[in-house]
């Protein structure tokens, strides 16, 4: 069972979900190139300027570790990355769990993705403004959490912090891609997990994926926001278990 994190952070996103499957599955977590603890030298601007490049990474990972066929759990943009990888090498994938997926974020004729192109520019501006602040603190800052000491020391400031150039390119790659046409070719059984109130991937986008994806199931969960893996891990674990092992 392979967990893939979405745009913004790294594999820590799965820390409340992945352990629940360790008894029943071999669990593999990874950071996308450019995120978390990945090797900066592996980042290739040419390859990682399209989601196909990230999908190639996933295929290489599965081949290298001889993992397939796997249950691939992709959050946010990694749901799309998983779909592209499954289209390329179906035999490596047993089932897909797509958490908060969107095949296209920008509105188009007859399609509502939720965003306009200029709003993605705003995101880039917001990211730029915040790297300015972060770049000032050179030494890693460990953010303590008195309420949850078990999370304390191991977390360094690398979480949710990417090289600005890589982060910008990943943001554009994530939010400007259009993978609607890729849905038709996918035969791998899949579960679409949709939060009831998600600004990034609205319910109608989740339904769009479900309707255009053969052999897919749809689970609407009572969670708010784009990251149920952090805000409602138990609910997410529940629907995943039900799908994988009814």
């Amino acid at each position, binding site marked *: 069972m392979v967990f893939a994190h979405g745009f913004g952070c790294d594999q820590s996103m799965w820390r409340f979900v992945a352990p629940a499957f360790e008894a029943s599955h071999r669990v593999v977590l990874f950071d996308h190139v450019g995120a978390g603890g990945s090797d900066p030298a592996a980042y290739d601007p040419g390859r990682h300027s399209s989601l196909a490049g990230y999908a190639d990474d996933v295929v290489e990972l599965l081949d290298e570790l001889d993992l397939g066929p796997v249950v691939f759990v992709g959050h946010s943009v990694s749901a799309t990355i998983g779909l592209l990888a499954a289209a390329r090498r179906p035999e490596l994938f047993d089932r897909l769990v797509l958490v908060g997926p969107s095949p296209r974020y920008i509105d188009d004729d007859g399609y509502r993705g939720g965003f306009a192109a200029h709003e993605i520019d705003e995101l880039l501006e917001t990211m730029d403004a915040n790297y300015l602040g972060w770049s000032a603190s050179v030494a890693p800052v460990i953010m303590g959490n008195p309420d949850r000491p078990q999370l304390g020391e191991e977390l360094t400031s690398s*979480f949710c912090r990417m090289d600005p150039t890589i982060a910008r390119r990943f943001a554009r790659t994530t939010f400007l891609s259009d993978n609607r046409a890729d849905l038709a070719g996918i035969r791998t059984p899949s579960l679409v997990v949709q939060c009831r109130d998600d600004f990034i991937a609205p319910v109608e986008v989740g339904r769009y994926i479900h309707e255009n994806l053969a052999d897919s199931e749809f689970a609407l969960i009572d969670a708010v926001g784009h990251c149920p893996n952090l805000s409602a891990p138990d609910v997410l674990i529940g629907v995943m278990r039900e799908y994988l092992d009814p």
Partner: protein
Amino acid sequence: MTPLGRARSWDSAPVALLRLDGSGAILDANDTFRGWLGDDLSSRDVRGIRLSALLSVGGRIYWETHLAPLLRIEGRVEEIAVELRAGGTPRPVLLSAELHTVEDETDPDDVVVNVALFDARERSRFERELVAARAEAERSAASLRTLLVTTTALARAAGVEGVCAALVHAVVEVYRAGSASVWLVDDVGALTLRARLGDGVPERPSAELVSQAAGAVDADGTERVEQVVVAPDGHVVVPLRGSAALHGVLVIVPRAHPGDDALDHGALVATGQQGGVALDRAVLHEQSVSVAHELQRAMLTERLPQLDHARISTDYRPAERSLQVGGDWYDAFWVDDTTLALTVGDVVGHGLRSATAMGQLRTAVRSCAEGGVGPAGVLGRVDRFVRRSGVGFGSTLVYGELDVPTARFTYACAGHLPPLVTRPGGDAELLWEGRRMPLGVGVAEPEPGAVDLAPGDTLWLYTDGLVERRDRSLHRGLEVFAQAAAGTPGTAGDGELVSSLLGGDLNEFDDACVLRVEWDGPAPA
């Protein structure tokens, strides 16, 4: 402080204070925050509204993808720059927040997020300027890197084809284009495709786009500057202007990767200018090369003497990469009724100068050769000519005389590679006698070497383009050459010798020349 005093301080604090639930919805907000929201919201109850919904769209995405996870995992975020969009004017704020679990509630998993927002209008203006300045500096640095790569690639290219190939390669590589093509104006003024790389190269760029790119002269006579033009279908036309005229255009089809940076038009214009200058140079270079070629061909294609008992074949091949002719030559002529002079030389350098020096040396050798002088004497005379005239200093030369009635070959070498004799059984013998320094150095004349040819023997004179390569020693090169010569079928004739000797392994950097005598005459006395 009284509870009432504390409540007043909460409401009138100089920062906006909020309490949110786990989903980011507002549980409570102070007066400062309500005051920032403008008339439509300030009077309303803001409870239940999600804070992220009051941010710019970019800020909302950022909240969902970065801040909410950070709060969940690290428990806090500090000094995050976002923009409040509710109310009249956008208000840049710095956001700090901490997440706490609520222990005295019935639901143990419930959390509350305490938020402080600092008004950052002034500071944000300043920071935006800093960000813009840094972005500009990074763009300039990236443009410079790009230009450096293309300049280097163009500097290495020799001919027009080379420049065109370098341009499309550099563009596809550096700008990550889907494809690139170069169209040059031909003799009759039409655009001709000269190089392409990648898929989906568009049809010939329209005349209108080309003239826009070239910066055609306006009706009022002012010349517009050349510019990058983007066609309606997205392909990009870059002018390639030389000093005198437009050479043509570079056409780029951008790759449709969402993560790619936008094409840097400034750098593209500069690349086009460099391409234009490189094409100027390439055109001149090709003219000079073609004159040198003509000259050398004219001097080398004269009819060589033929014998009853021998076959003489020759070949010359210019360097593959530079297109430059060198100063290699061969010659064969009668010194007297029975003595045939055979010679191969190599003038230092390449190009027109070397070609003319070669012509002079070749003539000098012919006039210095005379019955009774002998190979060493002839080399001495040529050496004095070189010292007197300065022509061909440092050139190397092998000169030998074949006495036809006795089948005896006498020879001398001025710094040149040794002649080679191959025999019918596959034996090969390098002739190392009669050696002296290259021409112009002026040393004592050596005793000439001599070898007697048997029927079926083959004599080879050649230049270093057949032997020397960067990746092996001269010794090894000679071995390889001798083997190839011994195994070369007699069917290879004029114009085929060099390639048959080298196999496909042509020398990129040096020209090569060879003269072969297949002896079938009487056995030596």
